[in-house]
């Protein structure tokens, strides 16, 4: 039988039962690989459940640094009888199955074209431990020890991580070391170590960090100067508010007095969350909420108010497959349209699309400057794939000379100096008016905030001309936004090509790899990663310069493509859909397959072939 051979380039998938404590053991495995200097990207695939349902943890190991999901499993750690059949099926021919052989499993339950490695994990645990909780938790560590032997890993890396994790609790460290050794020595003695898949020390990780997107965005909000967070628990955004809470506790509590330089309210629903954010932002604090698609739906009316009343608000939308009773634990990029055009009346909103935890941090902070500068809601569009998974990314940095940009705010001195204040008066020609915080001056600068039905000086009027005047200024402001939001990032193929692809957010790692896969097939592709809406001029230019542009997205209705067509008046025939929307993260194989197929149907001859 063939045995798959690979060094530092394979996929290990753990099939577990939710709530069995496997998550930390699996993360330990992934981090150990990273400590060996080998890039590894884990993805937690979990159900909407606390205990009992199946959960998977997939670790893609790639010396080349590919971090997108790959598809297929090279080594399956099958610890869940419920999903046995499907798990066995997902193993590639010549791949490996590692399972708990305590209870005998009929031969018909296996496949003949895979390598089966059984280890009596339960038996070993029961012999070693008496407490049932210990048996359960250490079983996970034991299999990590066994994997270390099977994959020829360095156990020092694992031990180092355990020592860091349980720092100061020596007893726990020793107990974990013991379980690890138990698994490691059993495997060395009884199993065919090492198997064809092996890990070797490398230097491909560099100074990169391993961080969760939601936590990074929460930290970004701390650095962005957010002081008010109002939120309602919803998967997959909850850990963002929790991240903010954690980093506020670390960085924003006065050491002497215990006073908190932040306020976090768990609201009664998403309507109240965004209401509080709007109230706080109106009153001059930087405020945000974290939510997901159903929350955005509930916030629609308020978002219109914020747009028209020109209130700076920041929303983190950690997208998931819809609807409310949908697939809350599966990833998608499906809220673009409902966020971009949220609410009733003519509205348009600014969106940012981070690709990884590093950008979750930088855009998380920048969103607050943009909100204040533009006096409008800013959406930071994460998704479950980057939000709830740990991902290797560039280390976080902050320029200490940077000042928070509070935008156009008139102070008591400004008002006193006789400068004209009109809340909706465009003084600078960029469509952005000045505002005052409540309580600034005893007799000047107060105004009454409404949606519309007011003139440039915030005086009540229902006159059509005043309404239209305001609407046009808002459009002008949106054009200003296009100039100051993060621009797209373009990467051209090594040879000239008329094929382009547009992508955004968590699709980035799969796209990077797809470009290489396509190049191997002789298809050259220029790519453009959109980082914000409204679109800057570069997006239009990129489309102009290519005959066909693939728009790669993780939703059914090609929402980004719709926005491009709508906003830039592009001929739809020029934009090809590449859509992945089954709730799993998009893969390079899917993108390259889809693009290659379309390219073939469009009779696009690879350049190399055309020349030869």
């Amino acid at each position, binding site marked *: 039988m063939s045995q798959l051979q690979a060094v530092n380039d394979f996929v290990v998938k753990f099939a577990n039962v939710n709530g069995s404590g496997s998550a930390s053991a699996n993360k330990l495995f992934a981090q150990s690989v990273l400590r060996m200097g080998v890039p590894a990207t884990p993805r937690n695939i979990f159900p909407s459940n606390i205990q009992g349902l199946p959960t998977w943890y997939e670790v893609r190991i790639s010396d080349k640094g590919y971090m997108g999901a790959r598809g297929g499993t090279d080594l399956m750690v099958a610890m869940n009888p419920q999903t046995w059949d499907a798990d066995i099926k997902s193993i590639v021919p010549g791949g490996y199955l590692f399972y708990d052989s305590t209870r005998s499993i009929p031969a018909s339950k296996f496949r003949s074209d895979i390598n089966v490695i059984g280890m009596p994990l339960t038996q070993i645990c029961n012999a070693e431990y008496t407490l049932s909780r210990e048996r359960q938790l250490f079983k996970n560590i034991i299999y990590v020890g066994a994997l270390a032997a099977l994959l020829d890993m360095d156990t020092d890396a694992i031990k180092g991580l355990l020592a860091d994790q349980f720092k100061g609790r020596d007893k726990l460290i020793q107990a974990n070391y013991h379980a690890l050794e138990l698994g490691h020595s059993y495997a060395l003695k009884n199993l065919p170590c090492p198997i064809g898949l092996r890990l070797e020390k490398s230097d491909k*990780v560099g100074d990169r960090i*391993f961080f969760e997107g939601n936590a990074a965005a929460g930290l970004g909000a701390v650095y962005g100067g957010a*002081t008010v967070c109002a939120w309602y628990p919803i998967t997959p955004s909850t850990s963002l508010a929790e991240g903010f809470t954690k980093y506020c506790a670390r960085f924003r509590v006065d050491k002497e007095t215990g006073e*908190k330089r932040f306020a*976090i309210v768990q609201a009664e629903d998403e309507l109240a969350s965004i*209401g509080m954010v709007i109230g706080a932002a*109106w009153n001059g604090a930087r405020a945000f909420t974290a939510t997901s698609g159903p929350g955005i739906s509930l916030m629609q009316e*308020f978002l219109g108010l914020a747009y028209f009343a020109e209130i700076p608000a920041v929303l983190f939308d950690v997208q998931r497959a819809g609807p409310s009773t949908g697939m809350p634990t599966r990833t998608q990029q499906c809220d673009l349209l409902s966020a971009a055009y949220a609410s009733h009346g003519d509205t348009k909103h600014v969106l940012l699309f981070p690709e990884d935890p590093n950008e979750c941090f930088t855009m998380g902070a920048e969103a607050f400057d943009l909100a204040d500068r533009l006096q409008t809601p800013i959406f930071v569009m994460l998704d479950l794939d980057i939000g709830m998974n740990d991902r290797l990314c560039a280390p976080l940095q902050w320029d200490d000379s940077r000042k928070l940009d509070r935008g156009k705010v008139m102070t008591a001195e400004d008002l006193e100096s006789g400068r004209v204040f009109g809340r909706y008066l465009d003084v600078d020609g960029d469509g952005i008016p000045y505002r005052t915080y*409540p309580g600034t001056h005893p007799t000047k600068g107060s105004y009454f905030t409404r949606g519309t039905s007011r003139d440039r000086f915030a*005086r009540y009027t229902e006159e059509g001309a005043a309404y239209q005047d305001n609407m046009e200024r808002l459009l002008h402001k949106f054009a200003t936004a296009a100039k100051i939001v993060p621009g797209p990032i373009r990467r051209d193929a090594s040879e000239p090509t008329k094929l382009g692809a547009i992508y955004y957010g968590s699709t980035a790692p799969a796209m990077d790899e797809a470009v290489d896969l396509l190049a191997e097939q002789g298809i050259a592709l220029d790519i453009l990663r959109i980082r914000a809406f409204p679109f800057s001029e570069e997006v239009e230019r990129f489309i102009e310069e290519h005959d066909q542009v693939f728009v790669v997205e993780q939703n059914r209705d090609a929402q980004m493509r719709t926005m491009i067509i709508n906003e830039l008046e592009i001929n739809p025939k020029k934009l090809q859909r590449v859509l992945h929307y089954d709730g799993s993260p998009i893969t390079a194989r899917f993108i390259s397959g889809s693009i290659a197929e379309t390219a073939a149907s469009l009779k696009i001859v690879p350049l190399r072939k055309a020349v030869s």
Partner: protein
Amino acid sequence: MTFLPKPKLHHPKLASNALGFTRRDYEGSISTLCAGCGHDSISAAIIHACFELDLPPHRIAKLSGIGCSSKTPTYFLGNSHGFNSVHGRMPSVLTGANLANRELIYLGVSGDGDSASIGFGQFAHSIRRGVNMTYIVENNGVYGLTKGQFSATADKGAKNKRGVPNNDEPIDMVSMALQLGATYVGRSFSGDKTQLVPLIKGALTHKGAAFIDCISPCVAFNNHEGSTKSFDYVREHNAAVNFLDVFEGRDEITADYAPGTVELVRQHDGTYLKLRKIANDYDATDRISAMNFLQTHHARGEIVTGLLYVDPDAEDMHAALGTATAPLNGMSDEALVPGNAALAKLNASLR
């Protein structure tokens, strides 16, 4: 209608308060509500209360939802920032504003449709959180701007203008506020200024969630025979439990009342609430008995008014959150941004 400025001229002998402001300085633009609307009397009472308390107008933030009542903040405190938000959501906007700057005085104005129907949840949760605010419901039992539909506070059996009775049980906002933990609860009647003005003053000086249910007859749609929110009906069924005075210092309290008829309550900010009792058996500092009293008298068809409950030692949301005493909206970059060194340390822990 368009904005109509009021003439700035006033009588030279018009009294001014400790800040040198006259009552005119607390006014807003001309009301566009119907002539005789109870809400205008409440606006006048708010102006009166703020003037007498010597409050700097610009240190008050007035917030409202949608409806006739929610239009009124335009008609008082023209030098205050105001926010006409969305229907039923004033409480969350006010809560957020309060989080941002705990130093301003927050006045939330709402109606019975705004607070008892669409915004019932937000009303409840803002009270639960103990937001430091004065929350006034201008309660007329109908939707005025959409021309006379019943609201959730309309009494069962009350008739609308066309004689059709209301079949649903009413929501008693005062009972709800008491149950939800409001620390200052009053009910009054827009036609009784002598009762209403001190109640608003007490609420504005109270630290915590202060709630006032003010019955305010709708002259256009709910002031007819068969209505239980008409001027005549409320006057006939008004059962005041006490009469309130608000004083800054203890010295102003004279002792010419019979023993047991006056109760003195000292609030956080040093102001005193002097309660002249009308119902001798009523104790305004006992929440449970206040709730009992309300239920008993409601069953008798009486509308109990006055200062119904006060907890003078109440704490507010900021105390529960442990927020800094300085307003969050004025914090410096240094106070908020941890800097690059902290990130370097964090990076090291994430490898």
